[in-house]
C-alpha cells in the first residue's frame, strides 16, 4: 500500500541547530521520522526505532519531526506542542518517550503530568503551552513533510530519501545498513 514508483526526498535538510537529534553528527546514516504522537502506527514504530538505535549505536543518527494530523487525531497537535515546549527546556526526548509510552492519554491534563514527571519548569511550560508558542515550529515541521512527500505517518527518510518499504525491525535495519554500504561505495561521503 505504501510503495511508490518515484523517489521522494527530504526538502528540509537535517540541521543540528533546529532538529531533535539522537546519535552523532558524523554517523554514516541518518534516519528521519515524521510522526504524530496519537497515531497508532507511529506507536508501533516507536519501540522498533528504539531497538534499531540500540543495535546500531554510534552508526545511526535519528531525527524526529512533527506531523500531527489533527483531522484524524484530535490530541496530536497539543502533544506535539508539548514536546516542543519540553525541547525549549532541553528535554525533548524525555517528553517524546513519555508521549509514545502513554499514547492513549494525551489530554491537556496528561501532558502537564508528563511535564511534571520529567521535572520541567511547569510555569514556563504552562505559559508556552497556553500561548501556543511552539505551534509555528510544529507547523513548519508539518509543511516540510508535506513538501517532502510525507503522505501519512510514520514516514521515514534514510539519508534524505523516503523509505517506502515496511518499517518492521528487519526491513528498516537492512535498509539502514544498505545506506551505510552505499555511502562507503561513494567514498563515505
Amino acid at each position, binding site marked *: 500500500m505504501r510503495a511508490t514508483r518515484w523517489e521522494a526526498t527530504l526538502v528540509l535538510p537535517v540541521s543540528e541547530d533546529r532538529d531533535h537529534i539522537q546519535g552523532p553528527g558524523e554517523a554514516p546514516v541518518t534516519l528521519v521520522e515524521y510522526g504524530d504522537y496519537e497515531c497508532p502506527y507511529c506507536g508501533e514504530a516507536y519501540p522498533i526505532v528504539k531497538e534499531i538505535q540500540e543495535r546500531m549505536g554510534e552508526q545511526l543518527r535519528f531525527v524526529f519531526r512533527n506531523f500531527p494530523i489533527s*483531522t484524524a487525531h484530535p490530541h496530536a497537535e497539543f502533544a506535539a506542542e508539548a514536546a516542543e515546549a519540553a525541547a525549549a527546556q532541553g528535554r525533548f526526548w524525555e517528553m517524546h518517550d513519555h508521549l509514545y509510552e502513554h499514547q492513549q492519554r494525551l489530554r491537556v491534563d496528561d501532558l502537564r503530568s508528563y511535564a511534571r514527571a520529567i521535572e520541567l519548569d511547569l510555569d514556563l511550560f504552562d505559559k508556552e503551552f497556553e500561548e501556543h508558542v511552539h505551534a509555528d515550529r510544529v507547523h513548519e515541521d508539518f509543511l516540510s513533510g508535506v513538501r517532502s512527500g510525507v*503522505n501519512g505517518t510514520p514516514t521515514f527518510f534514510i539519508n534524505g530519501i523516503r523509505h517506502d518499504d515496511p518499517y518492521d525491525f528487519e526491513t528498516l535495519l537492512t535498509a539502514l545498513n544498505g545506506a551505510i554500504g552505499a555511502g562507503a561505495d561513494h567514498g563515505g561521503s
Partner: protein
Amino acid sequence: MQATLLPPGTSAPDFALPSTLDGPLGPQDRRGHPLILVFYPADWSPVCTDQLTLYQEVMPEFERHDAALFGISVDGRWSHLAFAKDRNLRFPLLADFEPKGVVARAYGVYRAQDGTSERALFVIDPAGAVSWSYVSPTDVNPGADGILRALEDLAAKGVTR
C-alpha cells in the same frame, strides 16, 4: 475507446454533481478562483482515507492560494455524507453516481474494468482551464506536494495569488 487524462491547457468540462453540500457543484461554481479536483476510487478504502485526511490537514495552504478542493468518486451522496462525517472532511465530496462515472469519463480518468475512477488530481485555473493533471497508481497516495507546486506555478504566472 481508451480515455486519456485531460492535459494542461484543455478546458475543464463543466458538470453539476450532487454533493455533500446542499446543492450540486461543478467547476463553473468556482470560476475566478483556482480549483483542485481530486478523483479517488472509493469512499472508505484505506489509501483514499489517508489521502483525503491529508488534504483536509493541508487545506489552509490550499486556501492561501485561494483554492477550493472537491473530492469526486462514483459513490453516492449518502455514502459521501457518512464518510465525510466519520473522517472530519470539511471539503465537499461529489457523487459521480448517475450516470455512473460520467464526469470521470469526461476528464479521462474512468477505469471501466473496476467501475471506479482513477486516483487523479487536477488543478483548474481561474479561467476554467486545466493547469495541471496527474494520475497516481490507485494504491499510491500521491500526497499534496504536486498540488501545491501547481498552485505556486499559477501564482508565479500572476494568474492567482
